[in-house]
């Protein structure tokens, strides 16, 4: 039981990143993998400021701003230097590894004796439910904010940029600027996941972001399958289904571990799982065609 609640908390913490990947992949149709770097960057900034006893709200803002800057960098490389989005992301992500390592000073920084976000409320006797409530609150706030943003005039313009670039430009939308803003928002959300996960596990590790983009991708793919299946077009519901996709993803991983899977194989299982999500529908389609 506890095991699955833990998976749920982790899933919620990582679903901020899922929302970020939804923005880049589904709204802007850009494959952005700055994620690995900006996730660790969020966790790194959290570690540095937590050790200096900064207030949590400020740490949150700084982490997300750092992530947003990483996204801006990728966006500028992509739109100004006309470098392929995937390569731009790889460049920034790789560079960030050294930045993170330099900032941390060593590969692993534990938050021993520091009060993290997850010790802020004590409404339930079992700490795990306090943790669940906290992270749920944050993700619900994210979804609400994002759903509102995407329904505003600015948000519609954002969605049009990825959906129909020619139309967007003809209607006076600066699509380059819009992409940079979108990448900034996406990576700010990814850094938020880094902020949450680092505090949940109680340390920041420089390699915690390696391959994490796949987890976000998994939640978007599962979430998108749910969206297609239910046929919802309401943007708030779609975002909630992306979060649900992230939770489902973590639960499957937790299930695999509880069945005795060696943790070393976790990334391989992640890969195979995503391959299955992407591959099986295509194989089925080919058979019916």
């Amino acid at each position, binding site marked *: 039981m506890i095991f699955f609640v833990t998976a749920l908390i982790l899933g919620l913490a990582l679903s901020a990143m899922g929302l970020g990947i939804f923005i880049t992949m589904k709204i802007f149709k850009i494959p952005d993998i700055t994620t690995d770097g900006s996730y660790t960057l969020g966790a790194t900034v959290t570690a540095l400021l937590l050790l200096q006893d900064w207030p949590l709200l400020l740490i949150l803002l700084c982490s997300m701003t750092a992530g947003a800057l990483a996204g801006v960098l990728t966006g500028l490389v992509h739109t100004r230097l006309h470098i392929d989005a995937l390569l731009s992301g790889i460049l920034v992500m790789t560079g960030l590894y050294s930045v993170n390592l330099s900032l941390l000073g060593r590969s692993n920084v534990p938050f021993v004796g520091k009060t993290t976000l997850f010790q802020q409320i004590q409404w339930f006797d079992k700490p795990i439910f306090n943790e669940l409530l906290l992270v749920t609150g944050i993700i619900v706030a994210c979804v609400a904010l994002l759903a*509102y*943003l995407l*329904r*505003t*005039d*600015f948000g*519609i*313009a954002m*969605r*049009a940029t990825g*959906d*129909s670039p*020619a*139309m*967007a*430009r*003809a*209607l*006076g*939308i*600066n*699509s380059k600027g819009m992409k940079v803003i979108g990448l900034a928002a996406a990576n700010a959300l990814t850094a938020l996941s880094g902020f949450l996960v680092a505090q949940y596990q109680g340390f920041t590790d420089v390699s915690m972001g390696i391959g994490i983009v796949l987890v976000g991708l998994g939640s978007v793919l599962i979430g998108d399958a749910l969206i297609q299946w239910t046929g919802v*077009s309401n943007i708030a519901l779609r975002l909630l289904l992306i979060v649900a996709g992230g939770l489902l993803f973590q639960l499957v991983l937790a299930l695999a571990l509880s069945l005795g899977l060696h943790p070393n194989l976790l990334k391989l299982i992640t890969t195979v799982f995503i391959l299955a999500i992407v591959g099986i529908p295509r194989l089925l389609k080919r058979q019916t065609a």
Partner: protein
Amino acid sequence: MIRLLGLTKTFHPGKANETRALNDVHLDIETGTFLVLVGANGSGKSTLLNMLAGAVFPDRGSIFLGDRNLTRLPDYARSRWIARVFQDPLGGTAPELSILDNFRLAALRGTAKKLRIGTTPGFRLQVRDRIAGLGMGLEDKLDQPMGTLSGGQRQALTLLMSVMAKAEVLLLDEPTAALDPHAAQKVMETARQIIVEHGLTAILVTHDMKEAVTYGNRLVQMHRGHILRDVSGAAKQALQPEAIYQWFLSDKA
């Protein structure tokens, strides 16, 4: 008035596939003119239209709209005055967005898109009214994604969208090329009506000679990057499709 002064454009200069798309094109278009632009493939008419829209910049020459010099202004900045309908019905609309969201963006063409909800009940009613005028029964489908409509429906809506915000110039880039004859006629009639109602200066690029003689009050034929013929007034009204076919044949010889 639109004033084009000595527009010149070469694609891929210095390479084997170098193409002189426009060669010193001068053209004055009075406000309220409905100009039809014809010419063989590669004659430069699409380049000229793209240049007016700001999607392509000239190597030499300048573009004026009234007193405003547009020459170096990118397309999204020109959109305040210039509306555009593309050949591909998919190009002018966002397929995943609802009809209502598409119209909301169109209403904000060339102005800032702010962080507020603009698809208010009032706006919805306004869009409903306009779409009802088309007589296509689309006014009850405002929340449907644009991508679920037929090409003709989308093109007709694109035309309506083009006048949701105040425009001075309407660029029509073979708007009916992908449509069946019936839908094409509906779209062209909608275009004519909108152009007259809003007093727009319009430029229509077309390969359909019947369309070229039926619509517009001035016809310009382009050939190898420059203007070959320029007919307006009674001469334009008297033009027959066969006459234009003859021009094309004789130019080739």
